[in-house]
C-alpha cells in the first residue's frame, strides 16, 4: 500500500494510505484523546472529543480524528485554540450529565474522563449543569454493577457486547437526551442472557460499569482466626497485575504477587495453574474416552465460565458437547476442600477459598449448582485482578519493591502447560501435549499452530493413527460463527477450545483496564500472552502429567483420571437456559 504525506502541526510525516487522522497524529508523536473510539471495537465517531482541525485544500474545519481518513497533503492541527476550546466545551457538556462522584469512584485515578478534565484544565465542572436523568443502579447480575448516572454514552460496552461477543443484552434505548444504555424493557442484567464476561467493564472509560467488589469480605475472612483462608491465582493474573502498579504491559509479576498475597495475610498462597494441570488430566482423558467410545464430538472445553453460560443460553442443544470437567478454579477449590482439607485435617467448612481471576464470570461460576464437592461451595470468593490490585494498594504494600517469592506446596506446584491456560490456544496446547503423550508416548511441547491472537484458529494433528481436527476460538461472536458451522455440518472438528474473551483470559473482563489511548495502539492480548508463553518455556516441566503434585493427588486421592471419585469432585453438569 502506498503512503500519504500529511502535515501534523506543521511537521510532515508519511503515513500508510487508509490511516485515520488519529493514527497519523500518533505516527507524528501526538496523541489525540478519544472517549467513544476504541480500535476495532467501537468506531462510531460519537463523543466528538477527538475533534481536530484539518485542511484538505478548502480551509480548516473540525473533523472527528478517530474515523476521518487522511488524504494526501492534508494539514492537521491537533491542538489549535479552536480544537482545545471545542474539546473543553464537549467535556463540560459531558460533565453536566455525569455524576461527578470522583472521590468515591472505583475508577478515580484511572478514569479516562477524569484524565481529560485534568489535561484540558476544566475550571468549572458545573458550568453547563441542568436537568439530568436519574437512574437506579443495576446490581441484579452476579458479577457487576451498572450505574447509568456515570455513563457518558460512549457505547463501547454496547459495541463489545453486541459485536465482539455477539450477545447484545445491552444497547442504547430511547433517543436524544433521554438515551440510556440498558437492557430490553429495563430488565436487570441478571434477568437477561448476559454471560458475565465483563468485557463491558474492561472497555468502560469511566466508573459506570464495575465488578462487584468482595475485597472487604475477604479481608474479614482473613481476620477471622477460625478460618483457614487459601488463595489461588489464575495464570493470566501474573501477566496483568503489574499494570495496576504502573509496570509496563507484559510484565511477569508472579513472584511479587505471591509475596503480596502472603503479606495480605492469606494462610496459603496457591496457584490455579495446579488446577489447570489437573483439568488437563481429566479433560485429555475425557477426550480420549469420547473418541474411543463414540461419545459426543466435537468436545468443547469448559474452562471459561462466560463461554459455558453462553453455550447454555444460545446453544442449549450443544451442552452435551461441553467437557464435563469443572474449570481449573473449581477443580482447585474442590480439591482444596476435599483432598487438601483431609490431608491437613481441616474441616472444609472452615476453609475460605479465595481465587484471584482475570475474569468476572468466575463470580457467577462460584454460585453455580453442582460446584460444591465437599458440601460447601468449592470457591467462596472470586476476586478480579483489579480487586487484588486495590487490596494491595489499600494495605500499603509497596508492590514493585517486593521480593519474588514462591507459591506454597503442594497446590502451588505446576507445569508450563498450566500457565499457558491464560491465553487463547493454551488449553488446547496443554491438552494435546498430554493426549499425545498418553496415546503415543511422544513428548511434544510446542504447537505453534494454536498460538496467537487470531479469533479463530484451526489445525489438524496426527496423533497415532488418528487425524485430530481442532479449532481454537476466542470471543463469543467467533464462537457463534464456529458453532453454527458445526451445527450445519460444515465443520468436523474433534476438539474445540473456546474462551469467552478475545485473546483468552489475559484479556479477561477482570483484568486491569487500559485506556483507549493505549489499546488503540498496543495489542494488550499479545503483550500479556507473551508473559505466559515465556514462563512456559522457562519451566522445567511443561506437561501436566509430569507435575509431581498432580501425580501425588491421583495416587493419594483420586486414583486415576476419570475415576468415580474424580467424577464426583472434579466434574459437573450443565443446564439449558433461555435467551432474554
Amino acid at each position, binding site marked *: 500500500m502506498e503512503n500519504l504525506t500529511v502535515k501534523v502541526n506543521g511537521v510532515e510525516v508519511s503515513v500508510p494510505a487508509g490511516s485515520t487522522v488519529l493514527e497519523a497524529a500518533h505516527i507524528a508523536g501526538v496523541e489525540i484523546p478519544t472517549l467513544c473510539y476504541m480500535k476495532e471495537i467501537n468506531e*462510531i*465517531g460519537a463523543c*466528538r472529543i477527538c475533534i481536530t482541525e484539518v485542511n484538505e485544500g478548502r480551509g480548516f474545519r*473540525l473533523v472527528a480524528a478517530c474515523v*476521518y481518513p487522511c488524504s494526501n497533503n492534508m494539514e492537521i492541527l491537533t491542538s489549535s485554540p479552536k480544537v482545545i476550546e471545542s474539546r473543553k466545551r*464537549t467535556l463540560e457538556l459531558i460533565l453536566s450529565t455525569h455524576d461527578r462522584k470522583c472521590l468515591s469512584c472505583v475508577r478515580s485515578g484511572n478514569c479516562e474522563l477524569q484524565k481529560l478534565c485534568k489535561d484540558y484544565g476544566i475550571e468549572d465542572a458545573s458550568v453547563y449543569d*441542568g436537568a439530568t436523568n436519574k437512574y437506579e443502579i443495576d446490581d441484579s447480575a452476579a458479577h457487576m454493577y451498572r450505574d447509568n448516572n456515570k455513563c*457518558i*454514552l460512549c457505547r463501547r460496552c454496547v459495541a463489545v457486547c453486541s459485536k465482539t461477543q455477539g450477545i447484545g443484552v445491552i444497547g442504547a434505548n430511547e433517543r436524544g437526551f433521554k*438515551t440510556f444504555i440498558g437492557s430490553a424493557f429495563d430488565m436487570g442484567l441478571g434477568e437477561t442472557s448476559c454471560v458475565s464476561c465483563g468485557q463491558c467493564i474492561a472497555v468502560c472509560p469511566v466508573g459506570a460499569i464495575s465488578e462487584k467488589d468482595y475485597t472487604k469480605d475477604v479481608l474479614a475472612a482473613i481476620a477471622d482466626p477460625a478460618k483457614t483462608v487459601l488463595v489461588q491465582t489464575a495464570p493470566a493474573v501474573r501477566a496483568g497485575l503489574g499494570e495496576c502498579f504502573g509496570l509496563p504491559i507484559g510484565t511477569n509479576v508472579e513472584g511479587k504477587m505471591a509475596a503480596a498475597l502472603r503479606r495480605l495475610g492469606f494462610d496459603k498462597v496457591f496457584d490455579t495453574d495446579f488446577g489447570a494441570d489437573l483439568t488437563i488430566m481429566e479433560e485429555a482423558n475425557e477426550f480420549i474416552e469420547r473418541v474411543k467410545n463414540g461419545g459426543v464430538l466435537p468436545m468443547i472445553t469448559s474452562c471459561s465460565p462466560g463461554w459455558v453460560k453462553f453455550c447454555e443460553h444460545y446453544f442449549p442443544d450443544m451442552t452435551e458437547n461441553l467437557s464435563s470437567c469443572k474449570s481449573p478454579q473449581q477443580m482447585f477449590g474442590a480439591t482444596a476442600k476435599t483432598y487438601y482439607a483431609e490431608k491437613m485435617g481441616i474441616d472444609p467448612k472452615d476453609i475460605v477459598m479465595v481465587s484471584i481471576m482475570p475474569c468476572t464470570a468466575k463470580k457467577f461460576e462460584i454460585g453455580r449448582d453442582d460446584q460444591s464437592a465437599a458440601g460447601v461451595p468449592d470457591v467462596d470468593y472470586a476476586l478480579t485482578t483489579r480487586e487484588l490490585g486495590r487490596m494491595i494498594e489499600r494495605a500499603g504494600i509497596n508492590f514493585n519493591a517486593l521480593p519474588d517469592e514462591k507459591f506454597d506446596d503442594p497446590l502451588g506446584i505446576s507445569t508450563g502447560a498450566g500457565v499457558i491456560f491464560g491465553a487463547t490456544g493454551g488449553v488446547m496446547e496443554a491438552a494435546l501435549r498430554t493426549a499425545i503423550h498418553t496415546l503415543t508416548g511422544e513428548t511434544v511441547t510446542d504447537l505453534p499452530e494454536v498460538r496467537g491472537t487470531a479469533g479463530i484458529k484451526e489445525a489438524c494433528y496426527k496423533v497415532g493413527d488418528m487425524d485430530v481436527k481442532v479449532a481454537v476460538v476466542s470471543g463469543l461472536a467467533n464462537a457463534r460463527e464456529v458453532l453454527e458451522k458445526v451445527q450445519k455440518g460444515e465443520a468436523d472438528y474433534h476438539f474445540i477450545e473456546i474462551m469467552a474473551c478475545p485473546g483468552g483470559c489475559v484479556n479477561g473482563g477482570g483484568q486491569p483496564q487500559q485506556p483507549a489511548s493505549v489499546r488503540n495502539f498496543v495489542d494488550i492480548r499479545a503483550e500479556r500472552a507473551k508473559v505466559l508463553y515465556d514462563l512456559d518455556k522457562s519451566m522445567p516441566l511443561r506437561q501436566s502429567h509430569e507435575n509431581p503434585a498432580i501425580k501425588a493427588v491421583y495416587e493419594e486421592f483420586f486414583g486415576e483420571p476419570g475415576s468415580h471419585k474424580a467424577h464426583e469432585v472434579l466434574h459437573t453438569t450443565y443446564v439449558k437456559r433461555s435467551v432474554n
Partner: protein
Amino acid sequence: MKTLEELKVVRESMEGEVALRTNGNASSKYERHVLVCGGTGCTSSGSPKIIEKLEAELAEKGLTDKIQIVKTGCFGLCERGPIMIVYPEGSFYSRVNIDEIHRIVDEHLIGGNPVKEFLYDETVEGDTIKSLDDTSFYKKQHRVALRNCGVIDPENINEYIGRDGYKALGKVLTSMTPEEVIQTILDSGLRGRGGGGFPTGMKWKLARNIVPNADMKYVCCNADEGDPGAFMDRSVLEGDPHVVLEAMTIAGYAIGAKQGYIYVRAEYPIAVERLNIAIKQARETGMLGQNIFGTDFSFDIDLRLGAGAFVCGEETALMTSIEGNRGEPRPRPPFPAEKGLFQKPTILNNVETYANIPQIILNGADWFASMGTEKSKGTKVFALGGKIKNTGLVEVPMGTTLREVIEEIGGGIPNGKKFKAAQTGGPSGGCIPAEHFDIPIDYDNLIGIGSMMGSGGLIVMDEDNCMVDIAKFFLEFTVDESCGKCTPCRIGTKRMYEILDKITKGQGTLEDIDKLEELCYHIKANSLCGLGQTAPNPVLSTLRYFRDEYIAHVVDKKCPAGVCKDLLSFEIVKDNCIGCGMCAKQCPASAISRTDYVAPGKKLAAMEIDKTKCVKCGACIASCKFKAIIKK
C-alpha cells in the same frame, strides 16, 4: 409494454383527456371533467364526501358517461379547500360545501353556467370570471415539479402517460448512455431539493464511478419529509407518484443500480397508498421490473415506512433506518456514493429533486438551466404556512423574492397585522426579517442571511409571534428529535433549550445570552450530522435579527409580542370598565373582583384583577367587549 410504440399508443389515447384540463380545447370522451382535490389538506376538509355526493348526483341524473369525476392531488391553495375545478371552463370552486353540489350540478354541469357565488372570489370580477392563472396566487407560479399535481388522477398510470409520463425513461433507456444521462443532469444545474443543495448530477456521477464493479447499488428516495410545516413532498407523492418512480428508474440506469427504496413517512397514509398503487401499476405495465422497454435494464422499487424520527431525513440515518436499526447517523466519509445502504454505493435524492428529472431529460438541460439564478437553477416548491392569507403550496422560479412569495402569491398577512419574520428551512433554518424581503430566494442567498432553503417550508410570523418563543419551539423540537448519539447535539441542544426556557420565564441574564451563543457555535461546528450542525440556526438567526426581543425578556422582563405568559400581566383599565362583570364570570381562577371605583360616566363600579391569582389564560380579554382589559 415493451416498446416505445406501445407507450405512444397509450399516450395518444390519453392526451386529449388530460389536455382538456390544461388548455380547455381537446377531444375528450367527456363533456366535462370535474377535478376534486384528494390531497391531505382537502381530504381533511371533506373532499371525499364531496366526491360521494357528486357521484350520487351524476348517477341520479344519468350523467356518468358525460361527466368525468377525477380525484387529483393537491392544487396548492389549501387555504381554500376543499377545492373543485370544472373543465373545460376551468371554474375554480373553493371551500366547497356539500350542500352546494346540487346547484353546481344543475346550473353548471347541466346548465353550463358556473355558479359564481361558489367560485373562488379572486376569480370573479364583476360579471367576468378570470382564469385561475390570472389570480395572484397562481400568476407568478411556474410548475415543473408540480406540473401534474391537480391535473391527473394519481391512481391512473395512463393519465400520467398521457402527460408524457415514462417518455423520459423510454428515451433514456433506448437512446442515451448512463454517462449522457448524468451529463444532462450535471448540465442542468439541478441541486438537491431536500435542503443541502448538493449538485444532483455530481452525486450520480460519484455513485456511478467511485466503486468499480460494485456487485450491488441502490437508489433511494427521501420522502421522510420531517420539517414541521413542510408538505411539498407529500403533495408530489399524492398528486404525481409515478414521476418519482420514473425518475428513480432513470437514476438506477444512470448509476447502475437494480433496486430502489422509497423511505416515506408513515404519517402520510394517502401518499403511501398512492405509491403502492403506482408501484403495482408500473410493475404491471412493465415500467418497473425485468427488461424495461425490452432492454437489458431491470429495476424495482420497494417502499419503506419511516416511524417517526426527524433525524431519518439525514441521509446516513435514513439508510441506517432502512437497514432495520435505530436511525442514527454515521460519520462521513465514507459517503453513501461509496458505502451507503447495506454498505453498497447508494444515491439518495428527495422527492422534489426526482420530480424534476423526467422534465430535464425531455426538455434538455438548457431548458432547465434557463430558469432560476446563476447558481440555483430551476424552480422551488414552498409550503406557505403560518400567518399568511393563502396557505398552500407554491412553485416559483429560483430567484423569486420573498416579497413576491409572501405578499403577492401568499396574499400578505391576515387581520391587518404586521409582518415580523419568515421562517425557512424548518428546525435547520432561520428567521428572515422584513429587511431581507427583496432578496432573491436561492440556496446561497438564504445561507448568507443565516437561514437555509431546507426542503421548502416557509412559515410567516407576524407581530404577535415572539421570536424567543419561536426559537424555543424549534429547540424543543430538536431536543425531541436528536438521536442522542453525539455529545454536542444530545446534551448541547438540551442546555440551549433550558436557557431559552429560562429567558422566556423572565429568569434569564445577559450572561445566559452569551452562553447560548457560545453553545450555538459549538454545536454547529462539533456535531456529527446535519441535524446537530444546523440545530442552532433558529437561535442564531433570531439572535442576529431580533436580539432586542431577547434583551427585552432578559433586562426588562417583558415579552414584546405578549406571548411568554410568565412575563405578562393582565390589567383592567378602570376608566374603560363599565362594571358588567362578564370577565369575573369567565375567570377560571376567580381572580377578578369588583372595586369601589365608579368610572366617570359609568353606572357600576369597575372590576380589578388580583395578579397573585391570575393564571394569564386570557379568558377575560376575550370576554370583554369594551377593551377594558389589557395584557402587557
